[in-house]
């Protein structure tokens, strides 16, 4: 679980909820994770930049290295993706180098860096937007699932029904009646017997023979 708490002593309510020791621990964690850590980083970067303005190469190197993840995070937050993030990082570092005299050591460093990075990210996005792109992208059609039935589905079902009807019509009369009443209309043996005037035994035998004949004729047809 991530506890994000404001810096400073824990309010009284938390002491009651968590117990005094837990609340103090949580507040200390908040100081490390939240505002406190940010302030320390901010001050460090400010001091490094001030030293770099004075010509301290080691401080400058440390500053630029510390900026790398920050710059790429800001670029991603602006919507830059993939390899373009690297390009924005490079552009931003070059601008930091060129504009280093415009940083006022008395002011926080992050807004200065963020403004430069955001501008370079926007420049990159605009350049990418100007480049011609393939609008009719075949991949986008493949990626999009059509919720409706596939185009040939109805035809196939109709073909199957027609083949079955032909095969049933070709059966001898007794077998055809048995299939139609018992198999297709799903009547009970008693109802079918009453309708056709045949015995239940005869119907069962006819159904069995009809299914066997259909299996043979339909298999032959598909082959």
């Amino acid at each position, binding site marked *: 679980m991530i506890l994000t708490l404001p810096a400073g002593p824990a309010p009284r309510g938390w002491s009651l909820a968590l117990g005094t020791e837990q609340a103090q621990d949580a507040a200390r964690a908040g100081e490390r994770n939240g505002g406190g850590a940010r302030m320390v980083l901010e001050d460090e970067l400010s001091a490094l930049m001030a030293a*770099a*303005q*004075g*010509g301290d*190469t080691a401080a*400058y*190197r440390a500053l*630029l*290295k510390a900026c*790398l*993840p920050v710059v*790429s995070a800001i*670029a*991603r937050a602006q919507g*830059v*993706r*993939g*390899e*373009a*993030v*690297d390009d924005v*990082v*490079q*552009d931003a*570092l*070059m*601008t930091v*180098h*060129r*504009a*280093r*005299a*415009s*940083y*006022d*050591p008395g*002011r926080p460093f992050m*807004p*200065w*860096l*963020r*403004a*430069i990075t955001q*501008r370079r990210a926007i420049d990159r996005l605009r350049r990418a937007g100007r480049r011609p792109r393939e609008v009719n992208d075949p991949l986008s059609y493949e990626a999009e699932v059509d919720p409706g039935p596939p185009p040939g589905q109805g035809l196939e079902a109709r073909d199957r029904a027609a083949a079955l009807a032909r095969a049933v019509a070709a059966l001898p009369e007794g077998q055809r009646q048995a299939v139609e009443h018992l198999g297709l209309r799903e009547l009970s043996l008693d109802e079918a017997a009453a309708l056709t005037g045949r015995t239940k035994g005869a119907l069962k035998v006819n159904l069995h023979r009809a299914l066997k004949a259909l299996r043979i004729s339909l298999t032959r047809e598909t082959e």
Partner: protein
Amino acid sequence: MADRAGYDPSRHERLVEALAGRLEPVRPLPAPAIRATLWLAAALLVGLLLAAEVDTASFVLRMHVPDLALAALGAVATAVTAAYAAFATSVPGRSGRWALLPLPPLALWIGASGMGCLRDWIAPGADIPGAHTVAGCFSFLICVSVPLSVLIVVMLRRACPLRPNLTAALGGLAVAAAAAALLMPVHPHDATATDLLIHAAAVAIVIALNGLAGGRLLGRGAGLD
């Protein structure tokens, strides 16, 4: 995998080393207010050079006319606020809302000048400048604007204007307002419609030229030389 895309350590390490190798000490730029003050001092210097031309008695008389005094006040205030806004927006991380600062004095300047025209329509017979004087005013505005424009562009380029067009337009406004303010003591006439039109044209030309040329100059300055 996707998170790691866009982070090429070796390429960035190389750039960091190259930039660190090229590091030279720089002096942090003074605050925008100080830089704006320096530029305004230069504009004032131009004004002092022109002081010999001023007909003081006539100037004092005209400053007793409320709308002329307000127009002068508006022009001076526009020059000061626009100069500060231009220098503030040339520093990364400063709010772009500084650009709104010169709008109220700009409204005062334009409004008061417009009142002058209205007065001329209501009470005709005011001192109307001839074509020769108008051309003189126009060339005065342009002649004062050019050196002030060059100076402000050079000064702005020392910072890093991330919004070059905005900064250049503010600089142009500062130049135009300063030139108009400097013209007022020299200008021997009341404001009239022709007068205002000529002023407006000169101001528009100065702002547009600064916006176009200055924006490009500042943009290249802010880019990767």
